[in-house]
């Protein structure tokens, strides 16, 4: 009452301070003074939404976000948005504005505060549906109370200054009674006082001011399927906030839980979620006895206060079992126990028959049948067996029924057994007259034992069922995590997630991963409705980290539900799950399982992405290392000859030696070094062409003898002085080759042999036909290749390190030969000769290679090859 006006006035002050203020949504209700105030601001036009023939006007969130004012004014925080808006509730819009860094002034009535909701309902008798979570208010930097004395308010109401919708006049009259207003006023003042106190303490703590802090209070709220649970949670929250304590909402999954109707289990899940929304830690514990489990947990967690609801079991059960509450109180010791009760909630619960488990009659029929069978068998042996054994027969029947069909049918079986026994077999037969007091004892014992056994047996059965369903849950989770752990490929991870969700829940899914700035679908199982709108929802989820879409408060009109794939570090993607149109809704367990799947998927995706990043880093580092090594090697190999040449030339020019022999020596050296330089540049050029893949083979039938001659001739003087023995098998077929390139390959091999063998030792070149290929071997009597290095001699920049070797090579020659022979579809290999020395050999196919494989098919036989003419089989 007057809060909109107050907000606008505060905003005017802000605008006067120079802040950019925007009216995002203000309801003036046609009041002149309010409208006059609004006129001072820029107003964002409302967004019209057609809904069931009516046009509703909502805040245009996207425009406000786009305008990005310093301060936005949003009236009526508790408002529920029209269907079609992004968020179900206006406070969610406000949260998004705050996240975007826009300050917001907003208004709220006290009865709309979530944790005060039921208190207000109790006082006024009116339940307000539109509530705002308390955290929203707690996040507020400042809360101002707009307060009027009740009488004045009622007067304003009568003067027509308070907006009242026409259709609500009667309700309003009932609501605006002085008693109600006073109560509401008190609630509001108390709430605000609490807030102020809270802020004060936060301030004192932040400034390290010592004070009488309550020492580590912890509130435990115990819930079950009772509708009272929600109220318990709200009360717990108020208590926790009042104490500034941490609070926990606990549910103990007793065996009974498995037998609860679907609606009841759903309610438990909802209550736990409510607790989470209100800021509690929520815990679900399996256990047989709720009270013991609660006390054990409370002690372990150092809980100081326990909140429970009164037991809702009928009085006689409580008499037999003792209520959970009583047992908690007995065992609590120094822990305070608060018991909450509410009659109205109970009524509401029993007025909802849909929440009851539907009664199945078949088990009862079967149970009665088993008892009938026992009667028949009893009739056969009646008079033969002792009475006591007949009793056993009926007990057996009750146990079988209990194990097979549960407690209800077992109870029925126990009662009918008693009746049948008394009627058929208790003397006198076929009457209910129990003549003998002894039989009365037998009959009563039969009933009691039957009931107890029945209860125990059915409990065993329920526990087994619960274990089975937990087992199934664990198995599904285990299957997924096992498969996710085994894969390192992002697509395989996504496939596994899609497949498992499909198999477990029968839903189609889509997974979105960010790529650069956009979110893109990486996996969609058949049937997933992937449209532009759906992608926009997924995108929103990715940016905000909250679930959205079908079944949530944000864009509930979407066809699927979207959940962020969140790890502790970041949001790695979005999972979309399409609800099943025909099949059942997910049970709370299934929802929990889906949550577990989601977090498993998020972790797996993050792991794969991190691995990939690490690997990329490794590759980059390795490439960089190789490039540095290569550059160092080349620059060394280029500079050494240049240094010799420059040295020789400057000496000759500046300080010409008198001795002719010295001059010759210098010039000879410079010339050799120039040749070396030329050779190196040529090799680098060849290597570059090979690696760039630009090498085009001009294949023509080549004469092997000619080839060897050309290679030796090209070696020039180095070969002239050496003993090179050539043996060419007669009638060798022509070999398809690029003659110039293969000459170069052979030159390099020969050069290598000459370089690494003593000048007086012969080098042999042998060519022969072996199968479908011509092999050319070059054998020397040098020191051979160190055995460990045989596999490496065709590597770039590999040089054999040993004494006396002429270290002039750049380590490229054999690598080039390897490349050239490989491009021809041939093989090249190396080995040590018996008696010392090395052999490097290559083989070229006589048939021309397939054009496509010419460059790619670089096969090399390396390693410890038999030194004699092994004929290496050609792998295809």
């Amino acid at each position, binding site marked *: 009452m007057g809060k909109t006006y107050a907000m606008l006035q505060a905003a005017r002050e802000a605008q006067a301070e120079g802040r950019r203020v925007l009216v995002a949504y203000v309801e003036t209700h046609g009041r002149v003074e309010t409208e006059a105030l609004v006129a001072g601001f820029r107003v964002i036009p409302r967004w019209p939404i057609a809904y069931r023939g009516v046009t509703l006007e909502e805040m245009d969130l996207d425009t406000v976000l786009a305008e990005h004012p310093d301060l936005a004014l949003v009236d009526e925080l508790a408002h529920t948005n029209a269907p079609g808006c992004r968020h179900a509730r206006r406070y969610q819009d406000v949260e998004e504005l705050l996240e975007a860094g826009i300050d917001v002034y907003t208004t709220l009535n006290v009865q709309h505060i979530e944790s005060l909701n039921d208190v207000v309902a109790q006082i006024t008798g009116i339940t307000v549906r539109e509530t705002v979570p308390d955290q929203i208010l707690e996040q507020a930097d400042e809360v101002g109370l707009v307060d009027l004395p009740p009488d004045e308010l009622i007067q304003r109401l009568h003067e027509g200054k308070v907006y009242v919708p026409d259709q609500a006049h009667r309700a309003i009259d009932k609501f605006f009674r002085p008693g109600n207003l006073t109560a509401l006023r008190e609630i509001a003042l108390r709430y605000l006082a609490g807030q102020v106190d809270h802020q004060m303490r936060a301030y004192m703590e932040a400034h390290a001011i010592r004070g009488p802090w309550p020492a580590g209070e912890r509130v435990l709220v115990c819930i079950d399927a009772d509708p009272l649970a929600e109220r318990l949670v709200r009360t717990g929250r108020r208590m926790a906030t009042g104490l500034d304590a941490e609070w926990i909402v606990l549910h103990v999954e007793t065996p009974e839980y498995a037998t609860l109707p679907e609606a009841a289990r759903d309610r438990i899940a909802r209550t736990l979620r409510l607790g989470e929304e209100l800021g509690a830690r929520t815990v679900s514990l399996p256990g047989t006895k709720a009270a013991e489990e609660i006390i054990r947990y409370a002690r372990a967690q150092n809980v100081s206060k326990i909140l429970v609801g009164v037991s809702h079991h009928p009085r006689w059960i409580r008499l037999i079992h003792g209520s959970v509450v009583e047992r908690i109180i007995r065992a609590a010791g120094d822990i305070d126990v608060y018991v909450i009760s509410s009659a109205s909630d109970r009524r509401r619960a029993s007025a909802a028959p849909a929440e009851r488990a539907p009664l199945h009659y078949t088990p009862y029929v079967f149970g009665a049948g088993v008892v009938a069978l026992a009667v028949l068998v009893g009739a056969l042996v009646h008079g033969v067996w002792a009475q006591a054994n007949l009793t056993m027969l009926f007990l057996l029947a009750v146990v079988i029924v209990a194990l097979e069909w549960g407690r209800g049918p077992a109870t029925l079986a126990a009662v009918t057994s008693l009746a049948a026994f008394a009627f058929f077999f208790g003397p006198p037969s076929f009457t209910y007259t129990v003549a003998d007091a002894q039989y009365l004892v037998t009959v009563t014992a039969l009933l009691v034992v039957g009931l107890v056994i029945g209860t125990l047996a059915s409990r065993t059965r329920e526990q087994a069922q619960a274990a089975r369903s937990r087992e199934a849950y664990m198995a599904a989770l285990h299957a997924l995590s096992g498969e996710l752990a085994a894969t390192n490929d992002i697509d395989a991870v996504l496939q596994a997630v899609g497949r498992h969700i499909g198999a477990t829940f029968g839903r189609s899914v889509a997974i979105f991963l960010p790529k650069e700035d956009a979110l893109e679908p990486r996996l969609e199982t058949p049937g997933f409705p992937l449209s532009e709108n759906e992608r926009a929802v997924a995108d929103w989820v990715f940016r905000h980290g909250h679930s959205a879409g079908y079944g949530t408060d944000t864009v509930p009109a979407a066809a699927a539900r979207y959940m962020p794939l969140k790890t502790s570090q970041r949001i790695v993607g979005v999972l979309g799950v399409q609800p099943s149109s025909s099949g059942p809704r997910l049970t709370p367990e299934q929802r929990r399982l889906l949550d577990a799947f989601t977090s498993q998927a998020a972790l797996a995706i993050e792991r794969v992405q991190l691995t990939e990043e690490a690997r990329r880093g490794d590759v980059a580092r390795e490439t960089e290392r190789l490039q540095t090594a290569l550059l160092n090697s080349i620059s060394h190999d280029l500079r050494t000859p240049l240094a010799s040449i420059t040295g020789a030339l400057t000496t000759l020019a500046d300080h010409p030696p008198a001795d002719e022999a010295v001059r010759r020596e210098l010039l000879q050296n410079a010339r050799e070094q120039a040749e070396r330089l030329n050779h190196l540049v040529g090799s680098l050029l060849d290597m570059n062409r090979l690696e760039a893949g630009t090498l085009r083979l001009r294949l023509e039938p*080549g*004469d092997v003898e*000619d080839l060897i001659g*050309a290679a030796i*001739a090209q070696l020039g003087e180095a070969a002239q002085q050496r003993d090179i023995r*050539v043996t*060419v098998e007669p009638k060798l077929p022509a070999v398809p080759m690029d003659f110039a390139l293969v000459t170069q390959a052979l030159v390099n091999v020969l050069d290598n042999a000459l370089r690494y063998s003593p000048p007086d030792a012969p080098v042999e*070149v042998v060519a022969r036909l072996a199968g479908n290929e011509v092999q050319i071997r070059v054998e020397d009597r040098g020191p051979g290749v160190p055995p460990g290095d045989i596999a490496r001699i065709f590597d770039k920049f590999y040089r054999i390190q040993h004494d006396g070797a002429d270290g002039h090579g750049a380590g490229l020659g054999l690598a080039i030969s390897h490349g050239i022979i490989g491009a021809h579809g041939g093989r090249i290999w190396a080995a040590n000769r018996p008696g010392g020395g090395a052999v490097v050999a290559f083989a070229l196919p006589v048939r021309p290679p397939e054009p496509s494989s010419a460059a790619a098919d670089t096969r090399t036989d390396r390693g410890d090859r038999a030194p004699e003419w092994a004929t290496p089989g050609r792998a295809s």
Partner: protein
Amino acid sequence: MGDTGPRVLVVDDERAIRRFLRASLSAQGYQVIEAASAHEGLEAAAAARPDLIILDLGLPDLDGVEVTRRLREWSKVPVLILSVRGQDADKIAALDAGADDYLTKPFSTGELLARMRVAVRHAAQPADEPVVTVGDLTVDVARRLITVGAREVALTPVEYSLLRALAVHAGRVMTHGQLLREVWGPGYVSDGNLLRVNISKLRHKIEADPARPRYIVTEPGVGYRLRVPA
């Protein structure tokens, strides 16, 4: 020295190469004319009427093959191609277009002078030399007689034609195409197999070690050359 020596036109865009050639060739008694581009070179060829042209393949304004072709439209002046590694295709094209021989950079002055001598001699004596002698090998064209040392070698008509073609251009490279055209005729220009087989047979008849030939040397990827002692 002086104005009397043979005139050599050097066409190369690299100043360092021109400078080095001027120094080496002048010392050998050649008159050196320089041109830094193809067009400059073609003009100088027409104006100065050199006895030999040294032509770089990689000129900036026109490629060496085209320059050779234009020269051959009006002149029979010997042309020596300077190439670098990796220009095999251009080299062969220039030779087929009428260039006399090629050298791959870097080359020694000795090599250059030997090639120049062969080219100039060949140009000066276009008529058939009746007898060509290379080491122990004698090719007597007039009498169709081949001897290696004292031994007379019997050749088939094709082998003889092949050897004669090489001998007539002794010291010069003959491309595969040129040899095929001269011995078998224009229709056989791409029949490399024919040439390969006959060169092999010829070598086995005249070479002491066919795997290390002394007379008929292979220019890988280009052609063959009857080697003359430098």
